[in-house]
Structure formats: structure tokens, C-alpha cells
């Protein structure tokens, strides 16, 4: 590993729990439904995180535990059965139902896997019922996706075909683009996980080579490995370099000639660099502080420092998987400070002390920092925006240059913070 300093911090945190990932997962797999088994808090959280943005009836909901459910566990199981059946009667189009565990359901020990098992027997394949935990006592933010994918793995059929499997939710357009690039390289058999329909799971076997698209899929990667798949070691496809190395790593493991790879990627790279140039001009030399939220912080910092010339004050990450992140950390400038975990107050003190030009943070912290005159960028935008791949590098950079441009445009005198 490079010389980056790795520190741990503990204290009060300010991050979403794993339930939040439902907000993008339910859009990825429109035939699935996510039923949180939890409290009014859990219901309120996903509602607030999703905003009132969704006009259609959402494909997620909460079975809210009430006083009497706490009294007897047997009843809670029966009640959940009843709720699920009501839901399925109302929404016959559901093909996969995720029962999502929460803090309360875990603390009172509702056995969701048993409920799922019983329901699967009863429903006879009409609907597949799965379970995972999105609780805040076990998971943060993006780890919810890790849990959901892990729950799907046992259902993946076996295959001996040689194939490339892209793992992690991407925007559809970005995914299509990446697949078409792999095809041009001669990798024809490319599938993705999660699939766009929950029932069309890719098959897996010893000839499956896995390329992770997102850095937060620790458990999923481990389970895929247990199924015999090979995890290709690479940095993540953010920015020109990251994406290039990521594609090259796949090409390598498929034994594709370097000259072919270069001839296909080089034009993309030079075009992307051109598009990146105005943003680099804006970002270069600016100080960046990343607060922990999505686990995308390390690849983002790597892109913003190496390709955009930003000066990295601190990289916070809620959890650091040293294996998956090794290729990334190797690329970081040696003087980088990575802080795993959080003490939100002390971290904010450090933010103020270092007076950065831009802070990447969770939604609750953004406006208070803006009010202190510090430009911010919401972490959650990174999991919603199409930012992966060589062609997207300038769009990714723009997410960071825009707040700085805005800061310049608005006359400071006309703004007063409250």
C-alpha cells in the first residue's frame, strides 16, 4: 500500500442507515418490492430520503411494529405474514419481495429468514421472498445494497460459461455504454448484477469474472467468490484513469491484446481529457474535504486529486475494506489522510480549521456548512448520477466544479447566511 495514513475514529456519527439504498434499488428492479420490517422512524427515513420525488405508488413500504407486536414474537411473525399477503394481493405484479430488517426488528429478534422461508413454501414460487438487513446498528447507507445483492446470490443459476459480470447498481445508460465498450474489445458475454428484472438473475460459476462497479460490495464480493467466481482486482471506474484501469483489468483477465485495448480506449481517453479540461481549471489547487457517507469517498478523492488537481485535506469513509480498496489506495497521493468511522463534531471542527473550498457530505450537514460559507456537494448524488466510465469523467468533475462556479457567480455581499 502507498503511504496514505489510515486512522480510525469513533463517536457520534451522521450517516444514513442501509435502508436508504432501497431508494435506488427499487428503481433498478421495478418488479421487486422492498418491505421494511421496522418502526415509524424507518418509514419516515426512507420517505424523507426519497423525498416526495416519487409520483407513482412507491415500490417500497414499511410494516410498522406496534406495541402489541413487541409483546409476543409469535404474533409478530403472524402479523408480518398477514401484512405480506395483503401487500401481494394489492400488488400482484411483484416478483421478488425483500423483507428488510431494521434496528427494531433485529433487537426484538424477528427471524426474517424464517418468515421468508415459510412464505416461499406457501407462495410456491409465485413470488420469491428474500431477506437482508438494512439496519442502522449493522449497516450504513450503501451497505444496504450489499445486503440486498448478497440475498440474491443463492438464487443465481450455475453456469460454466466464460463471462464478465458487472456487479453493483449503475445508471442504465452508463451500463449500456460500458457493455458496448466491452463488446468492442471482444468481451461479448457481459451481464450485470443486480439485473434490471429481479427474476432475470445472471448465472455464475468458475468461469465468471467479476468486475465490481461500486466499492461498497464487500459481502457480495465474498459470496460471489464462494460461488467460484473470480474477482478482478482493479480501481473503480470513476474518472478517466480509474475507468481505464478498470476496463484494462477486465481485458487482461480475458487475455485481450493490449494493442487492441489501447486502440479502442485511447480515442475515448483523449476526448474525455479534453472535456475534463475546463473543470480541471476550476478545481485545480482547491481544497477538498470528504466526510464519510457512501464509501465512494476514496475513489472520488483519487480522481479529484490525480486528475483534477485538487488538494485533499481528509478522506472520511464510514467503513474501509482494505482488500477491495487496495488498488485505489495505491493510486492516492502518499500524504493522504483516510479516516475510517466518525466523530461528527470533531470532524466538523477539522473542516472549519482547514477551511476547504469544497466539502462532500451527507444531506443533513450541507446547508449548515453552506451557511458558514463552505461550498458542499451531497454524497448521495454520487449514487444517483451516471458518473461511471471514461465518458462520464467530465460529468463527474462537473458535479464538483458547479458549486465552486456558483460560489463565484453569486455576489457574496448579496447573500447573508442565517
Amino acid at each position, binding site marked *: 500500500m502507498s503511504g496514505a495514513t489510515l486512522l480510525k475514529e469513533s463517536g*457520534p*456519527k*451522521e*450517516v*444514513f*442507515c*442501509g*435502508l*436508504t439504498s432501497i431508494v435506488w434499488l427499487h428503481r433498478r428492479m421495478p418488479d421487486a418490492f422492498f418491505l421494511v420490517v421496522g*418502526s*415509524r*422512524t*424507518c*418509514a*419516515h*427515513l426512507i*420517505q*424523507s*430520503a426519497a423525498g*416526495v420525488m416519487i*409520483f407513482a405508488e*412507491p415500490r*417500497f*413500504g*414499511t410494516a*410498522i*411494529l*406496534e*406495541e402489541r*407486536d*413487541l409483546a409476543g414474537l409469535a404474533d*409478530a411473525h403472524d*402479523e*408480518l405474514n*398477514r*401484512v405480506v399477503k*395483503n*401487500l401481494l394481493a394489492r400488488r400482484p405484479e411483484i416478483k421478488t419481495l425483500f423483507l428488510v430488517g431494521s*434496528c*427494531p426488528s*433485529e*433487537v*426484538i429478534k424477528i427471524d426474517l429468514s424464517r418468515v421468508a422461508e415459510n412464505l416461499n413454501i406457501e407462495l410456491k414460487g409465485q413470488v420469491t421472498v428474500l431477506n437482508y438487513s438494512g*439496519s*442502522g*446498528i*449493522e449497516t*450504513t447507507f450503501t451497505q444496504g445494497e450489499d445486503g440486498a445483492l448478497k440475498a440474491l446470490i443463492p438464487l443465481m443459476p450455475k453456469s460454466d460459461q466464460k463471462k464478465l459480470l458487472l456487479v453493483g447498481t449503475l445508471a442504465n445508460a452508463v451500463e449500456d455504454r460500458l457493455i458496448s465498450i466491452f463488446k468492442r474489445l471482444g468481451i461479448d458475454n457481459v451481464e450485470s448484477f443486480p439485473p434490471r428484472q429481479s427474476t432475470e438473475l445472471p448465472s455464475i460459476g468458475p468461469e465468471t469474472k467479476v468486475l465490481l462497479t461500486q466499492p461498497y460490495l464487500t459481502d457480495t464480493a465474498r459470496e460471489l467468490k464462494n460461488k467460484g467466481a473470480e474477482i478482478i482486482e482493479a480501481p473503480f471506474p470513476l474518472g478517466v484513469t480509474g475507468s481505464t484501469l478498470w476496463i484494462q483489468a477486465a481485458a487482461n483477465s480475458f487475455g485481450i491484446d493490449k494493442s487492441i485495448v489501447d486502440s479502442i480506449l485511447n480515442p475515448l481517453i483523449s476526448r474525455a481529457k479534453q472535456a475534463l479540461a475546463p473543470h480541471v481549471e476550476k478545481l485545480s489547487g482547491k481544497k477538498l474535504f470528504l466526510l464519510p457517507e457512501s464509501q465512494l469517498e476514496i475513489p472520488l478523492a483519487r480522481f479529484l486529486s490525480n486528475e483534477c488537481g485538487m488538494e485533499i485535506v481528509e478522506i472520511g469513509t464510514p467503513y474501509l475494506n482494505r482488500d477491495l480498496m487496495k488498488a485505489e489506495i495505491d493510486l492516492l497521493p502518499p500524504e493522504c489522510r483516510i479516516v475510517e468511522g466518525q466523530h461528527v*463534531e470533531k470532524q466538523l471542527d477539522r473542516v472549519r480549521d482547514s477551511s476547504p473550498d469544497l466539502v462532500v457530505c*451527507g*444531506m*443533513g*450537514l*450541507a*446547508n*449548515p456548512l*453552506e*451557511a458558514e460559507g463552505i461550498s458542499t456537494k451531497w454524497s448521495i448524488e454520487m449514487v444517483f448520477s451516471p458518473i461511471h466510465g471514461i465518458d462520464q469523467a467530465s460529468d463527474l468533475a462537473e458535479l464538483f466544479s458547479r458549486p465552486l462556479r456558483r460560489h463565484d457567480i453569486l455576489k457574496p455581499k448579496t447573500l447573508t*447566511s*442565517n
Partner: protein
Amino acid sequence: MELTLWTYEGPPHIGAMRIATSMKKLHYVLHAPQGDTYADLLFTMIERRGSRPPVTYTTFQARDLGGDTAELVKGHIKEAVDRFKPETLLVGESCTAELIQDQPGSLAKGMGFDIPIVSLELPAYSKKENWGGSETFYQIVRTLLKDQSNESKHTWQEEKRRPRVNLLGPTLLGFRCRDDVLEIQKLLGQYGIDVNVVAPLGASPADIMRIPNADVNVCLYPEIAESTCIWLERNLNIPFTTTVPLGVGATQDFLKELHEVLEMEIPQSVNESNNSKLTWYSNSVDSNYLTGKRVFIFGDGTHALAAARIATEELGFKVVGLGTYSREMARKVRPAAKALGLEALITNDYLEVEDAIKETSPELVLGTQMERHSAKRLGIPCAVISTPMHVQDVPARYSPQMGWEGANVIFDDWVHPLMMGLEEHLIGMFKHDFEFVDGHQSHLGHLGGKGTENINQGVKTTISNDSTNTSNNPIWTHEGERELSKIPFFVRGKVRRNTENYARQAGCREINEETLYDAKAHYKA
């Protein structure tokens, strides 16, 4: 277990956060897992507040559960007191912490701080946000004032000063509270009445201590302040007003009530002039089109009740549905609905509300953001009158709901989603004009342009989806569709629905040109 897709209210500790964040020099230690910190964004994003709520979350994790979570709680409490130096400390727990029973309140009390500590017990599995807010406010007031006695209290007359009142109940994430307070302060000033303390919004613990200096409490938002007002009346002899000054009539009644309680002469001007334009605008000939417009009302108790009164008495609407998600307010909403010949809809299920809207097919919905979405799906205009809050409900401009100016704002907000009177006439006269072909739109932003197609599509999908017995649905003939297409697009959805309803009732399998006119005659009759 209750299945929800959307909820109107958060858990009770969100209510407590609303109180804590509304106040100054107070800190709230909330025993809760890390995910519960999402609540901060309600304040910093929806309210666009420039500072974080004064809340320290313990953010315990599964691995802490085996160990000593009580020590963890104490550590956070100590750190919070050291760092924030509050004048009063609130300590409570969220739903998950309630299950592990650490009793953070008693832990805090045993730590020897020399500030008042308010221990909150908010049952997360049976109560909700407004209840939590009300209970928290009550506990703060009680804790801070419990030792005050009221024996030597003098009236304003005896002390030869202007009368003083407290305005109780406004909070952050309450519907237009900030502006309401300004408006009521201004109004009272005109009548020679001073405002002593506003709470919880903007009040510090020291301000709470000054509550007994007032002659009367004004219970502005009963959801939050009623239990506190009752306690203050019982224990400190401070009477309170119960009329909420929403609408012209209610504002007049409020002033009357307040003057009575203060034993003060009402200046003649109160009855003669009202300073709201609502009355004249409502009387103007343009407003004739509002006569008997069918409205559906749903929201928190206070705003729904007020809306029903304004709608019937001040705008001449016909209320076809009235309800609230607040069970605590059901007691008041039920008789109000009954007086209108309706049965109150008391529910927490927005789908039930949507069904009720569909059922009554109103011409205007006055609801929450959720009803706005439902109304949009159904192609019905809607104005938002109540929490839950959305960033749209925190406008930059001054827009109170209470008092005279509030009535003006309400007139505009409710009437704008509708077509204005003159417009409606012109459209009747010119509906065959080429200007009114589909897609062309003058200045009716809310219904016009691209959106219109969506609305119509929305209506179609709703119709094809909603009915379980599809076979029962009448079929439109070519002629029927053609006639329907001549109807201006902004009312077409409604006509389509009415005609289909009519056809079903009349047992028609097909809808042709004649069915359309039959239906029209039926609904006009």
C-alpha cells in the same frame, strides 16, 4: 403491524426534535442508532435552516449492544453538555433505544449537572410526531415552571399596564408558523396587546421562565400547545384562548374571545372593518364561479377545521369531504364534519384519502403534499394547507396563514389552482376556437403545456388500473371519444370520469355522444 407506503407523521422523537430545534440554548441527547440522524435533513433541507439541530445522537451499533450501552449514553451526555453548554438538557430515546431500556433520562439525572434535565418518555410504538412535540413542550414547561407559584399575580388592570399574552405552539416544520407569529404579533399590537413570550419557536429556557408574566395564553397550534395551556391554566391560573385565527371569521372570533378573557372592551373597529381583502374579493363578481365549488379537505386537525370554515363561510364552496390524519384531533373534526352533513375521514393511510377523493370527485382538493400528488394523478387542482412539510411549503416570501394577511394568502393560494371566473366564462364562449386546441396554453401554468398530457394520461391510467372489475367498465365509442375531445383539455379528465361513473350507474356498456350529454345533464341536475 401496520403497512404504510407514506406516512403523514414521523415518530414522536421527531416531534421532540421540532421543539428542541425551535428553541434556543437547549440541547437534546437522543439515544438512537446512526440512521436516525437523517432527521437533521428535515430541518436543514426542508426548512433550509443554516444550522444543525441541537441534537447529539448516541449512534449505537450492534456491537455496542453486548457491552455497556449505559456507559456509552453517559459519555455522549457528558460530551454534549461540555461542548454545547446548554441551559436545559433534554434526554430521550428513539424507537430502537426504547427497546434496550437504558433509561437515558435517569442516567442523565444521576450525573450531577447543575442544569434542569428534562427526561422524555415518548412511546415510539404507539404515538406519533405531533404527540411527541406536544409532550416535549409540556415537559419542558412543567420542568422549568413547576416551582413557580401564582399567588401574588396581578392583572394588567391592577398594574395599569397594557395586557400581555403568550403565543404558544409555533414550531419549526409547522405550517407557515414563522409568518403566522409575525402576523399575530402585528395584529395584537394594533389592539394594544403586547406579546410576552413566543414559544417554543425562538424561546430560550429563560423565556419559558417568563411565561407566568402574561395575562393570557394564546393557543395558536393546539396540536402542540393545548396540553401545555391546560397545565398552565390549572397550575398557574393563566387562562387561554381556543379560537385559532385562521380565516376572516375566525380572526374576528379570536379577537373577541381574547378581549373577553382579558376583560377588555373590544374596539368597535373589530366588527366594522376587517382588514382582509378576502371578503371583498369573495364578493366581487369574478368570484361567482366559486359558488358551490366542491372541495375536499384533509390535513392536520387545526388547518383542516379552519379550511372547512373558510371554504363554506367565506368562499361559498361546498365541502364534500373533511378529514384529518391526527387521531388526537378527531374529537374536534368529527362534529365539524357532521355539521356539514359529512362523516369525518380519520385515517393515516393516504391511499384511503385518495380513494375518498376519487369517490367524491371534487373540483378542488385542499390537502397535504400527499393529497397534492393524489390530486395530480386524478387531474384535480389542489392547494396545500397543512403539514407534513415539503420544501415548497417554506416559501421565501412572507406568506402567513393567520390573521388578515393570512386570509389574503389563503384566498390566493386556494383560488389560483382553479381557473379564474372571467377565464372560465371566456373558455365557455370560445371553447371551439383554434386557440383552445390541445396543447395550446395561455398562462395557466399549473395545468398547461406539457403537464396537461401527463394529467390526461394520469387520469387514463388511474381509470384503467383502479377498478378491480374491469369488465364492468363502459367502453367509449368512436363518436363518444370525438365528442369528448371537443371539451377543453383541462376539464376533460373530469368529464371523462363523470361520464364513466354515470354510464356505470345507468348500466350503459358503451359511451357514445348521447351518453356524454346524458351525463352532463345528470350532473348539472
